[in-house]
């Protein structure tokens, strides 16, 4: 296994930047998730690493080798595709053997390597079948097998779980994690599902509009989103964001709304607010950091219940605060009625402030 380094990688289609100066380092044995909404450039980035499409600029290293001008087959990487991309006319055995045959290994070596890979993935009993005779999970495993059979320097995975049904996906998620752990493999994993990224990866690269928005451990991305995009993309339900105005200055700053209510910030948050480029800030709060009061409460802001979604363990509610919707959660035994007035209290230690203009997270001035 080897590390994968992207340095100022660019891919343009005409005047459109599909990948815009992305730099990141995937350490040897690390599991990195490229995550973002459709069209954010994550799959393009993966294809650039694989060498399936030409780069417009930048450098890619796999191990200590500059691979910019190398063909996919010379980059020594393996790829797992969303639809598995198994050769439909070949048996499972021949699918697994194919990358080895292309490298002109002897028949004995091929046999032993295929059997070893099949054993790891528990598919030895399927070797004589054709792909269409396999279930989705089995096909997935064969695709993994074809990737691991030749000890590549890195695994590239393009949404490998998104064609599976929900239950199987959760199961394969743990299996992939085990797979990564046992092989100590370097994995670059593309997904649009932030939950997959958070649960599986050592580090996640959040992309949007061709830019790398944030590259950090899932915990840091979750706790310290760099900007409003990352804040709203990571976490489910999404973090609620709503624009407010700074009132006052120094160490006793309040945030006020157009409707007229306001609440004071603590000292740290006041210093953050002071760093804002203008008077406008965006408050970000996850449902778990918001306390719901049924009566007026000092420091809490007024709102009106819009929808209530009981899930069993916890009840989510959408609350209108001014023009913005805020998602909150309450214990299942708390009954909320539609259109009921409530007061929301934000946990000042765990709330986020973003600059109203730049959308970037504010740091204490």
């Amino acid at each position, binding site marked *: 296994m080897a590390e994968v380094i992207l340095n100022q990688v660019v891919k343009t289609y005409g005047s459109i930047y599909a990948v815009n100066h992305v730099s990141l380092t995937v350490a040897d044995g690390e599991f990195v998730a490229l995550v973002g909404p459709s069209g954010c450039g994550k799959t393009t980035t993966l294809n650039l690493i694989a060498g399936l499409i030409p780069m417009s600029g930048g450098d890619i290293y796999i191990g200590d080798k500059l691979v910019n001008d190398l063909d996919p*087959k010379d980059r020594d990487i393996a790829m797992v595709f969303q639809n598995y991309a198994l050769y439909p006319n070949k048996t499972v055995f021949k699918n697994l053997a194919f990358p080895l045959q292309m490298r002109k290994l002897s028949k004995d070596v091929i046999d032993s390597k295929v059997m070893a890979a099949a054993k790891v993935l528990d598919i030895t009993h399927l070797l004589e079948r054709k792909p*269409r005779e396999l279930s989705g999970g089995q096909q997935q495993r064969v695709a993994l097998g074809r990737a691991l059979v030749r000890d590549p320097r890195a695994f590239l995975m393009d949404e490998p779980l998104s064609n599976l049904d929900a239950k199987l996906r959760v199961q394969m998620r743990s299996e992939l994690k085990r797979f990564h752990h046992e092989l100590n493999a370097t994995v670059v994993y593309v997904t649009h599902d932030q939950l997959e990224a958070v649960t599986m990866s050592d580090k996640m690269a959040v992309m949007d509009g061709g830019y790398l928005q944030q590259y950090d451990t899932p915990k840091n991305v979750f706790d310290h989103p760099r900007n409003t995009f990352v804040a709203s993309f990571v976490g489910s339900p999404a973090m609620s964001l709503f624009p407010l105005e700074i009132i006052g200055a120094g160490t006793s700053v309040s945030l006020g709304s157009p409707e007229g209510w306001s609440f004071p910030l603590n000292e740290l948050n006041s210093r953050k607010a002071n760093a804002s480029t203008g008077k406008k800030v965006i408050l970000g709060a996850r449902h778990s950091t918001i306390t719901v009061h049924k009566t007026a409460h000092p420091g809490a802001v007024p709102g009106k219940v819009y929808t209530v979604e009981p899930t069993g363990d916890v009840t989510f509610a959408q609350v209108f605060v001014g023009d913005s919707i805020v998602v909150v959660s309450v214990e299942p035994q708390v009954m909320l009625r539609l259109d009921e007035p409530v007061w929301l209290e934000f946990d000042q230690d765990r709330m986020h402030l973003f600059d109203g203009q730049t959308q970037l997270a504010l740091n204490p001035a």
Partner: protein
Amino acid sequence: MSSGQAIFTDGPGTAPRRPGLFSRMWKQRADYLYVLPAIIVMLIVIGYPIYYTIDLSFSRTPTTLKLSDKTFVGLQNYVAILTSPNFWKVTWQTLVWTVLSTIFAFGLGLGAALSLHREFAGRAFMRGLLLIPWVISAVAASYVWKWLYHSDFGAIGALMVQIGVTDEPINFIDNTRTSLYALIVVNVWKEFSFAMIMLMAGLQTVPESLLRAAQVDGANAWQRFWHVTWPHLSGVSMVTILLLVVQNFNSFIIPFVMTGGGPAGSTHIWITHIYEIAFQRQNWGAGAAYAVILFILMMILGIFYVRALTRGDATRAGT
């Protein structure tokens, strides 16, 4: 490996016994009513001529055009055909014509389809250009080619003299050794775009991710074609080849317009030969007998064609 097995692995139990053909037909009698008008029309315009041709093939007709005066002669026409040396000569020429035309039209079509499948500037224009032979009128094309081949005024002969292949223009058409092949060239030119269009449609069904997977697995362009693209094309290739065979077996316009079967019958294929016997020599019985033999051969090819089509359905249903 039958695809039927794959289907049944999903469901328990065995398939219910199929009821007999007639009870199924009776159950679906309303459906037959809907297609009845079409069936009646087909019986009149297709069924009756077939019946009448078969009837004629067992008869001798007078040299006048009064077909009602025909007399029953049994298998005499068939015997006469099968024992005539001309029959075997024309059959051999038809086989050469069909096999060579099909092979080269398919091969050229495959090459054109593969070249047009990749992205390049002017692809749409090239596609349009290569389609011209297929959409152009066969009669017009035959006349143009006849002039191209002309020994005194033809461009091909002139070109060969210019680049020094020969000292004087070769007469391709008025030569019993080259005439059939000269016509096959025209036929291939006319037909390869049909194969091209069919195969281009087939190429669309090759999943991009499979080709990428093969690329990552280390396959070169030829290996990608052989291991990924070609297996996806086998169904459409089978249908294309069968259609080409049927089409070539039934060719008429190019040989009829360009040479009329000559010189010395060297470019006669079945259809032109039948036409000559029936409509030029007024030998209706023999022409009909020829047509019946051709009809039987065509029906056999038709069975393969339908099989190739429905086999594709079964494979798709199985995946």
